[in-house]
């Protein structure tokens, strides 16, 4: 008996000292450990790392309320909308250009894009390790990640000017990586980085037509050329704009402008790159994108923000079909038969964000159209005009006007054509998150905002302030934009 107990003691001591560390190795059950990367070492597994990047574009902080605040409400195309007392956190100050480095919209767009960039870097880090996945697929997925990273840096550089370039997964304990994360690069360096990513992507991406019908939303070679052309446009590299626009092939202008912004028109022949929202079960759409812009008040269905401004309304020529395709007017009937009563709180709402099937749902079936062939034609026209080929530019502009139900442009001189193209961009691309950056790019901002009844301070409002959170973190490594 005694021996038994002594043996227990001895055995237990031997047991515990012998395999103690093994005993303490516990397999994770609540989440998949990053040590089990092998689980993803196949075609489908590799693809998930890129899907997560696309998924970022569906997040509230990335593409929805704050993004409307920065890219739309701040511009002369839109007003805050909604009830006078509902500020939407900061949409009143976004509208009035009185935002500050702590404004929510400004903070969210910064962090959301870096969250997306992290997902790109994670994909670019892990996919090369997944050697059991198809090599062509892996190369293409890497290309998609680079396209999306370029897309997000383009958003950042347009919004904030030069920003830190995070081109790899930072090691939290590396001082060098810490400096990388906290130091602004110049605007030019960011543009160079974007161009490099896009050129890498172009090498490996498929053409849109090469994707299966269920994957038309992926980044394509055409999308990369179109984005590269737009990046060139922002840097006034006119010849490159023309060259890259010429490489965007396989697309065409659809006859009915309004149809593009409805469910049936998604990913159509004109579409180059869209963010995909799907309203059928399981629902996965852009969080609150439709409902936040839906009509508010009795008979409405949404929060009523980001409403078309008087200035935009006045920009449409008589007979422009795009006006009624872009703006919901109170007291009218929509294409699907929905009656918008006059009791709603604002006179106008954004039609391009409207979801017919589920207008009041948190996530709707609405897509965001980021790159369309129409814009490629307008970019090419603008560049050709700047390259003194005004006569070649005019037919491109007219192609867009014709589809809108308008006659040919009356502009002839280079200067007039330039103005005409800019104006055409405004009405063609209204509420497609382009206007604010476009008026800054083209130098029209001060005048445009004066018409809109807001004061745009030259030398300050070209870029938004960097978030105060970021400035606090940098401890002097980066400085705030002038005027903030």
């Amino acid at each position, binding site marked *: 008996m005694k021996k038994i107990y002594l043996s227990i003691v001895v055995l237990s001591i031997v047991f515990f000292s012998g395999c103690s560390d093994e*005993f303490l190795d516990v397999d994770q059950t*609540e989440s998949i450990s990053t040590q089990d990367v092998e689980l993803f070492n196949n075609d489908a597994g590799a693809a998930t790392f890129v*899907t997560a990047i*696309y*998924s970022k574009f569906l997040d509230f902080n990335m593409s929805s309320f704050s993004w409307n605040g920065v890219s739309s409400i701040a511009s002369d195309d839109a007003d805050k909308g909604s009830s006078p007392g509902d500020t939407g956190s900061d949409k009143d100050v976004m509208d009035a250009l009185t935002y500050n480095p*702590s404004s929510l919209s400004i903070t969210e767009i910064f962090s959301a894009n870096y969250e997306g960039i992290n997902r790109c870097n994670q994909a670019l880090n892990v996919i090369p390790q997944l050697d059991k996945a198809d090599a062509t697929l892996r190369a293409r997925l890497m290309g998609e990640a680079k396209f999306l990273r370029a897309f997000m840096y383009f958003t950042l550089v347009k919004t904030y000017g030069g920003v830190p370039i995070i081109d790899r997964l930072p090691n*939290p304990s590396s001082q060098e990586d810490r400096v990388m994360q906290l130091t602004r690069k110049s605007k030019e360096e960011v543009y160079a980085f974007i161009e490099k990513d896009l050129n890498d992507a172009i090498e490996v991406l498929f053409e849109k037509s090469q994707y299966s019908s269920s994957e038309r939303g*992926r980044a394509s070679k055409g999308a990369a050329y179109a984005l590269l052309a737009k990046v060139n446009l922002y840097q006034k590299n006119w010849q490159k704009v023309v060259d890259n626009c010429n490489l965007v092939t396989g697309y065409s202008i659809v006859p009915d402008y309004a149809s593009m912004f409805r469910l049936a028109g998604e990913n159509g022949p004109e579409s180059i790159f869209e963010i995909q929202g799907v309203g059928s079960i399981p629902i996965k759409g852009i969080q609150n994108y439709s409902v936040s812009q839906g009509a508010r008040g009795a008979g409405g269905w949404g929060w009523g923000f980001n409403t078309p401004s008087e200035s935009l309304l006045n920009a449409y020529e008589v007979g422009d079909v795009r006006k009624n395709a872009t703006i919901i007017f109170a007291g009218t009937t929509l294409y699907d038969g929905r009656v918008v009563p006059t009791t709603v709180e604002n006179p106008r709402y954004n039609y391009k964000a409207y979801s017919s099937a589920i207008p009041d749902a948190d996530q709707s079936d609405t897509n965001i159209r980021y790159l369309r062939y129409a814009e490629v034609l307008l970019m090419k026209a603008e560049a050709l005009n700047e390259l003194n080929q005004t006569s070649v530019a005019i037919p491109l502009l007219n192609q867009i006007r014709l589809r809108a139900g308008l006659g040919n442009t009356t502009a002839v001189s280079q200067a007039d054509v330039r103005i005409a193209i800019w104006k055409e961009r405004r009405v063609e691309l209204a509420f497609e998150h382009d206007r604010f950056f476009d008026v800054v790019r083209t130098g029209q901002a001060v005048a445009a905002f004066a018409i809109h009844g807001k004061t745009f301070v030259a030398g300050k409002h070209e870029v938004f302030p960097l978030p105060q959170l970021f400035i606090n973190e940098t401890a002097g490594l980066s400085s705030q934009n002038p005027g903030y």
Partner: protein
Amino acid sequence: MRNIIFSFLALLLLPAYMSGQVIKGKVVDKEGLGIPGAIIIATESKTSADTDFDGNFNINAKIGEVLKISMLGFEAISITAADGVMNITLSDSKDTELKEVIIIGYGSRKKIDNTSAITSLRAEEVSKMKVLNASQAIQGKAAGVQVISSDLPGAAPSVIIRGLGTALGGRTPLYIVDGMPTENINNINTNDITAYEILKDASSLAIYGTRAANGVIIITTKQGRGNKIAVEIETFAGFRAPLRTVKMAGSNKYSHYSNAALQTTTFSQDQPVNTDWFDAITRTGTYAQNNISVSGSSETVKYFFSVGNYEEKAVLNGLDFSRTTFRTNNEFKISKKLTVSQNLSFGSSNSTPKPLDAFTNAYKQSPIIPVRFPNGEYGVPFVGGDGFAGVAGSSFNNVGNPVAQLDYFNEQQRSITLQGGLKLDYDILDSLKFTSQFNGEYYSWKNYNFEDSKRIFETNNNPGRLSSIVYPADRNINVLTKGRNQYFNWNLSNYLTYNKVFASVHDIEITAGTETSVRGPREELRVVRRNVNENSNYWSLAGVDYGATVLNFNDAVFNESRLLSYFGRFQYKLMDKYLVTGTLRRDGSSNFGKDFRWGTFPALGLGWIITKENFMADVKSVNLLKLRGSWGKLGNQNVPLNNQAYSVAGLTSYLGGSILLDGTTVNSQIDPSLSWEVTEEASIGLDFELLNSRLKGSFDVYDKTTNNVILNTRPLITSGISSASPAHVGEVSNRGYEAALRWDDQINDNLSYWVGGNFSSNKNELTGLINATLAPVIGGDLANGQFTKILDNTSVGQPLGSFFMYEYAGFDPSTGEKLYLNAAGNAVTQDVLNANTDKKYVGSILPTSNYGVTLGVIYKNIDFSVDGYGTAGAKVYNGKKAQRFTGENVEDSLATNFWTANNTTAANPAPFNQVPVASTFYLESGDFFRVNNISLGYKIPLEGMFINACRIYVNAINPFITQRFSGFSPELNGDGNPYGSQGIELNAYPALRSIVVGANLKF
């Protein structure tokens, strides 16, 4: 085998049989019960023996020789050995300290020989307070222990021992129930507890190493004793009602105030309805508890068996709670050397929870609305053109009907906790004992929650049954959520205890052992289904595939956590007056990375019993004076998981087709070097007994620092990592002192009394941060966009749980608008405040001191006692008051005295409709003193009857409170999180006053 051992033992004991003869006897206490373990020494024969389980002994000695008999807690005596069976009665030791044995980790110790700060509470003190949870019963009874209780049935109180040392998970003390480490004691019947020991300082805690940083509470349940079967019945029943209520404005005052706020005449000033919503959602609570226990012992078996049942109909309508407990504790003396003990407890609780925001809704809802309209529909906030509430009209607030809310809320929870253990004690040698103990705990929980979505919509939107308002056909008619949780934890410890006195002055006890603890994976299943059958008995039909109606399905197995430990303790006593305790524990935890999982936790305790010194021998008025000191390091492993994981949830996207694709990324940064939080503590204490031990007390001072507090740090914003990462970043200090004093006196045989009290003071401070960007912990959510607490890098120098908000600066006499101080010191209105610069730290939810008092008298068969508890220095936030938005009710005091153009010096600002910013306007003092318990009992004299003893009693629990807080109760445990709803009265269950009548019978 057995024979061999016996022969071996016989050989060992052979010398003892060689002289004299066998003297037999029995040692009993004054009640005639056998005293086991008493030591008998034959002075001439140099032999010794112990009494067995029943007090019997055999010793080889000569008749006429002097036998010395001693036993802990009794006066030692010398007696002449006699022929025949000697009957020896020991009287209780006068030295009360000597009498007491306290439980320390992995053993017990005479209180006087203990070098550490342990508060030991006996059964009577814990069970006197008629509450469900034992932790609530100790409130105010132990110095240095703060208990934030809640009268919500089934709620676990927060227990903070010597200050809060950490901000993240793992704030609660470790409970050890009969050797089993566990997280809460909700399943323990207070009546089954025999002792409740609170380990407070490093010297006592270090034996529990990594889990000890927040203190340890050891609970020992009852054992059988005596030589006949004892049956005890305890039964009581009582009523409960809110201790304090808040007077709300009546209908006409409400209308007056709301019209002023809206600057309209929406509401008629002559209202036909005046609903008291608090009254409408509450009832007089009732509760009752019945316990029966059977216990006893024989030569070889001690047994204890109990069944208990608790039933409560809570003050909130529809909230019912019941708990049934069952326990058996048995000890079998298999041989002289081997004892096996077994315990098993079963606890089952059922409850029908109700949403506590009904209290907030009752506070906010307008009194002009009837509970039900004349058409039978629930009243809702629609006001008609006549200025009265009606079935149609315009909606004037967003508050639901709290009565409807409770009626529609349909949830049931059931849980079962099984705890059991097996313990072996084997005396290898007289001085060497081996103990092996295994304990397991199984927990299972299930619930359902049924939401009658369509009816709720109709109630809220269409009380007039208008045909134009139709519930959309594509929405869920109803939604049913079912959940299942379970886990199994186990613990195995093996240790040796060696105890020997050398040269009669060196008393040594050494304990050494190993322990394995496994906190099993929590398994969680949850399914949400739509459009289930109206009859709840048809929710789950056999053979039906519910796949198509499932809205959500979660199946999670949370990570298992394992702990492996080695521990040793050396206790040394020199000449009965100098005491040394050294403790070392080494723990390995699976929570940390391979190279950082082991931690070593040493502690040292010293004691000096001054009264045993010769120079004190003449000081008759001082019966005991003992100085204690200790130093040690303790760990806390309850930190968030530190393994890096792939994020897979919610990262899906369609990419142009109809297939939703899965997404994966990594959204965390980990610090692989994350390891134990280490708390270092030094403390000094003094115990004393004066004036014939009538005045007893102790005084302790401590300094406790957690050097590497783990907080969530936010990775740099450009890293794109949005989830915070735990890292060692902070230093938290707790410094304080605690004092306890008690006077006990017996005036004559009929009358005795006591008066006692304790006081503790603690200063809690976040003293530093290592270079890191803290992800701000923004807490104290008021659910209206306002937050009241923060923990970030500006919090250094503040106590944990600090409020962070704007400072109210009175109202503008010309407009009645509230003003706040901005950073520049100017009083401004809320729309121009800057959230980044204008907020201030304005105090913490943690009190700086708390105190308890007790007094009692026993006269003949009557006993009377009063206990009280109070805290000072805490702030509480009147969260429900800070909610007001358009059309909601206000307190009577506000509705009668507010700014108007004609009353610019009113006590309150002008009525407003904006959500008020979080400010000191709603921050109040949390100081209170409450009489926790008044108890009056009478022992019915029962001589020679079937019933041995019967005590009947009346208790008043929480009968009185003095508080400065204008809300219901300043004691606000909330979610138990200092950065959550703790200290905020919002959706809070009120403190209750209870009257209980009961009886205790012994057979």
